[in-house]
């Protein structure tokens, strides 16, 4: 069943177009993450879905019902906010039951629902406290409890983890994911953090300039970014992108970085199906840092391509070492094993995983192959 369906949705403020014809279909039980840099329109989109903001045109359907003119309370949704938005003057219990109170749910039913949710989130000892007496993580839990108790068709999360410190954020991330798996809820989750998107989502909608750039499962988004924006936004450090030239010889397509230079790099692409029209043209080559490794690394499959490149900077992080090097004159980040410490300024050997190279059209910035 389609839980949420957004059709040709646009939003204009005066002469500023914040959302430009959004189309999204989200299936029941999915965990969808809307991710993008600040100002991309993701929060506006979420507010329109919640009914807190009005669309300029287009429709929002929740559970098969057009809800454009339905007030937030009747949309069968629940929302968790960045600041948690716990009512400061109410206890945790009152915070959770306030919605039911507004809907005139009988007291006994309210108590049962609170008990249920409190147990699920392990917040029973907190029920009598005021929000000001809670830690950040506890507030987060209460905010989720308030959403869970509604048992809605659709959960909306608006950057719920950005106010937490790094350690707590990782814990809560796992907890939300576990919760989703346990109760099978449909979730739309807004964040600017691509790691949250990758770790939690069943599908990711990458947004930029008021448009959905790509809507796909995390692996696809990571492996086949629809365009240069997605390629550079998802992944940390981001995908290396550099100008290159696409050629063809009898063995198939070859990309050349720094063509004509003494240190030019020629990479033969196997298993790629590139339209003939691109052969002989400039393209943008994208290669993730983890596809450039120390020279002794063997990527599964074909014989590795090893090139020698000058090392400009070395950044050990403990688990791995990041190396900035030059491929045919273009800067690129490599992710190598921490056991090797390349010498700064000298050249070293690097193995390239050419099966995972992306090619983009430099004009449209779209993925070619």
């Amino acid at each position, binding site marked *: 069943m389609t839980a949420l369906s957004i*059709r040709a949705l646009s939003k204009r403020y005066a002469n500023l177009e914040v959302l430009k014809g959004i189309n999204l279909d989200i299936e029941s039980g999915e965990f969808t993450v809307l991710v993008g840099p600040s100002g991309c329109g993701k929060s506006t989109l979420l507010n329109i879905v919640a009914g807190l903001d009005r669309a300029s045109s287009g*429709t929002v*359907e929740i559970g098969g019902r*057009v809800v*454009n*003119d*339905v*007030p937030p309370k009747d949309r069968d949704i629940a929302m968790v906010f960045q600041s948690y938005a716990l009512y400061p003057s109410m206890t945790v219990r009152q915070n959770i039951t306030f919605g039911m109170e507004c809907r005139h749910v009988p007291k006994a039913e309210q108590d049962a629902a609170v008990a249920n949710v409190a147990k699920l989130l392990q917040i029973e000892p907190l029920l009598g406290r005021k929000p000001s007496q809670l830690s950040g993580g506890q507030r987060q839990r209460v905010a989720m409890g308030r959403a869970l108790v509604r048992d809605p068709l659709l959960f909306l999360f608006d950057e719920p983890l950005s106010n937490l410190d790094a350690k707590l954020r990782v814990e809560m991330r796992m907890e939300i994911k576990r919760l989703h798996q346990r109760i099978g809820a449909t979730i739309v989750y807004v964040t600017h953090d691509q790691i949250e998107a990758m770790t939690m989502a069943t599908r990711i909608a990458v947004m930029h300039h008021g448009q959905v750039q790509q809507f796909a499962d995390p692996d696809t988004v990571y492996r086949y970014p629809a365009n240069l924006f997605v390629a550079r936004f998802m992944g940390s450090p981001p995908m290396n992108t550099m100008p290159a030239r696409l050629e063809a010889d009898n063995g198939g397509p070859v990309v050349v970085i720094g063509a004509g230079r003494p240190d030019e790099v020629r990479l033969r692409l196997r298993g790629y199906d590139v339209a003939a029209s691109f052969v002989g043209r400039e393209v943008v080559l994208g290669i993730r840092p983890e596809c450039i490794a120390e020279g002794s690394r063997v990527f599964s499959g074909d014989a590795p391509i090893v090139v020698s490149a000058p090392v400009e900077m070395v950044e050990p992080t403990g688990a791995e070492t990041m190396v900035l090097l030059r491929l045919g004159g273009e800067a690129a980040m490599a992710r190598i094993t921490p056991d090797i410490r390349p010498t700064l300024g000298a050249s070293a050997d690097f193995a390239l995983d050419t099966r995972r190279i992306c090619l983009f059209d430099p004009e449209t910035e779209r993925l070619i192959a």
Partner: protein
Amino acid sequence: MTNAVSTATRPGRPAISGALRRLPEYLTIWVPLLLSAAHLVSFSLWTIWISFTPSTLVPVSGWVGLRNYTAVLATRNWKIAFDNLLLFGSAFVLLSVVTGLVLAILLDQRIRGENVLRSIFLYPLAVSFVVTGTVWSWLLNPGVGIQKLVHDLGWTSFKFDWLIDRDMAIWTIVIAAIWQSSGFAMALFLAGLRSVDADLVKAAQIDGAGPFRMYRRVILPTLWPITVTVVVIQLQFAISTFDLVRALTNGGPGIATQLPALVVYDLMFQRSLLGRGAAAAVLMLLILLAVLLPYAAWRYIQQRRATHA
């Protein structure tokens, strides 16, 4: 799909019943706000209109152009009131700002009993100008006040009779007004002093600035936006001063302490010259605008600068 689109765009019943349901909330929001805004706008326009009519005992329609204005401006009463306002306004504002600033700096020296002292300097703001004026009229009355006390103590040539001296009477109003509202300037300045960046003070200390230099070069320059605010508010108070003079001198001796607000009241309700009274009120408003408009422009520029920076 087509069905869905038409549902969304059709101005159907839900919208109307929704608006009806929200009627009480619209009424609660709009009625008080509209009433307040409407009375401000319409009453101002009404008074301005009356100022151009030949109204005397009751408002009448008709148009006399600026005749009421020229009549008011030509009276000795208004001239004295205006001169008094210039003197009273500048002396009172200057002295209350200086007093307030000195008090604030003294209280900022981490002295004991700061709360008690602050309460003492601020309590006059809680009493009415009528009370202030009455009490000071007793203290400054040469027959029963300070002069009498000093005479009784043996210094019989002592003279402090400003209250009945035509040339000096306006200064009694300055004294009472300073007593009443220097505390206000102090409170604002003290808040300003307390919000000076502590790192700034530490940096100046490391640079070797002594207390005097610290205030003159580091701390006081940060206070000048507050000073402008204090000056404008005190000027606004000076322009509309009425109760204090009514209670202290009632404009006397003669008309020596006349102020515009008293002239307005006198014309409107004692001489029943409504047209002229309204003209005098509009003149008061113009004097006020002469103070407030530059201030508003200054604030606007400050804000623009702050957002651009």
